[in-house]
């Protein structure tokens, strides 16, 4: 096995008593002594600090950066205002999702944050298709922290009052603890909060300054997963991957009108034909929220059936587990569109038994963003 990479906060995680696990080639904290359940609840009630430095941070610069990225991403990037952020994805020629990502217009460049497991491929993909017309630069001298939860604004604005002026999906350069940080008011927990790109050498000092606050606890990947699942947010490689299109992934909201059929800049991204056709006629399957009726969690891989007796599966659970805020099991799955109406009861096969689940609107916990 090859050596695991470490983030600039690795030593701090170990000092805080984290249980470290391999994740996307990195040694990452899955939980701290508080435990997954309490870490989850703390984030929803106060604020949690996450190390997401394993994710890829990329600068795309040059006069035509937004136009160029629109050739790979089915999102309105030209229309993204300065200091604003937006969700998107790279698609392949079959319309499948190569990765999902965040795009921020930072004035003289587009700042892209991509998943750790895909970052090498994403950067190569951008360089191959976009250079030399624009410059694609991986940022390796910065860590990425996420501060999430209702107390985040009070915590961060104590370090720089400008943090309080930002609203959901705004980006700004803040001075936190004297360090130049690139901050967005976003995250991946369904809570209000911020993502903070901070120079590697300042990352631990900033993390300690944030953790000093009574309302802030360090939170591991375990709770990050249950928080995003309750928030109805996709995990790349599980809920969506190269075999799912944005339509199947229930992500058409991320494709603005201007990029859809009839829009001024319709299509022009890989897989346009497949995605445009599915947006008109529907896709054969769709990502939905699933609420198991009993207490037993149903996890990734559980097969789904229309009835307790049906021979043929109608889909599969793609993410599932216990939702501490919901107080019971929650899941998401890809199922045949014919069976995907909200309120439909379907059955998951767990340890040889067919147990009922209800197709449920996402998110499971209401989003708590500052609009």
């Amino acid at each position: 096995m090859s050596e695991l990479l470490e983030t600039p906060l690795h030593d701090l995680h170990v000092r805080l008593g984290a249980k470290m696990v391999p994740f996307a080639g990195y040694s990452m904290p899955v939980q701290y002594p508080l435990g997954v359940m309490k870490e989850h609840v703390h984030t929803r009630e106060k604020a949690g600090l996450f190390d997401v430095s394993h994710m890829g941070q990329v600068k795309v610069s040059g006069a035509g950066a937004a136009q160029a990225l629109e050739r790979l991403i089915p999102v309105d990037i030209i229309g993204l205002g300065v200091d604003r952020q937006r969700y998107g994805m790279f698609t392949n020629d079959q319309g499948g999702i190569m990765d999902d990502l965040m795009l921020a217009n930072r004035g003289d460049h587009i700042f892209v944050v991509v998943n750790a497991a895909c970052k090498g491929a994403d950067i190569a993909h951008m360089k191959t298709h976009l250079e030399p017309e624009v410059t694609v630069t991986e940022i390796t001298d910065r860590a990425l922290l996420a501060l999430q939860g209702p107390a985040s604004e009070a915590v961060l604005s104590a370090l720089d009052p400008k943090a309080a002026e930002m609203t959901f999906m705004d980006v700004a350069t803040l001075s936190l603890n004297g360090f130049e940080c690139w901050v967005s008011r976003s995250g991946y927990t369904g809570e209000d909060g911020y993502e903070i790109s901070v120079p590697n050498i300042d990352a631990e000092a900033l993390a300690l300054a944030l953790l000093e606050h009574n309302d802030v606890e360090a939170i591991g990947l375990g709770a990050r997963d249950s928080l995003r699942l309750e928030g109805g947010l996709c995990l790349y490689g599980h809920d969506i991957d190269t075999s799912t299109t944005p339509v199947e992934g229930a992500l058409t909201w991320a494709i603005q009108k201007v990029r859809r059929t009839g829009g001024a800049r319709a299509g022009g991204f890989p897989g346009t034909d497949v995605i445009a056709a599915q947006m008109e006629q529907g896709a054969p399957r769709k990502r939905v929220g699933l609420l198991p009726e009993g207490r037993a969690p149903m996890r990734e891989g559980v097969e789904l059936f229309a009835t307790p007796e049906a021979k043929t599966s109608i889909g599969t659970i793609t993410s599932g587990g216990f939702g501490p805020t919901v107080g019971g099991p929650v899941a998401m799955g890809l199922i045949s569109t014919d069976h995907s109406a909200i309120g439909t009861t379907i059955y998951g096969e767990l340890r040889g038994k067919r147990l009922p689940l209800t197709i449920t609107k996402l998110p499971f916990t209401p989003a708590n963003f500052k609009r």
Partner: protein
Amino acid sequence: MKYTEEHEWLRVEDDGVVIGITEHATEQLGDIVFVELPEVGTTVTKDDEIVVIESVKAASDILAPIDGEIIEVNEALGENPALANEDAIGAGWFVKIEPSDASQMDDYMDEAGYKKFIA
């Protein structure tokens, strides 16, 4: 008390053997959110899956450490699975088995042996 390498504990009472998992095991599993118990009256053979535990992380099976009949299950775990975390060797017990061959217990570790095993 006796202990297995699967981190189960066995406590002999007048009418049967009470079985649970150790604190060491619950610490490794993390927060337990669901416990599926067998039916009272089930006859079990050593190494049969008798209990399913779901923690926030994963599902794990508890295997019968001895042959016998399930004579009691801890219904309280259905309502409050966290009991297994809070009081692993007390209120967090899983099942009581009436052993058909009590000598199977002899194979297992005593407390000192188990402590050495997990050290």
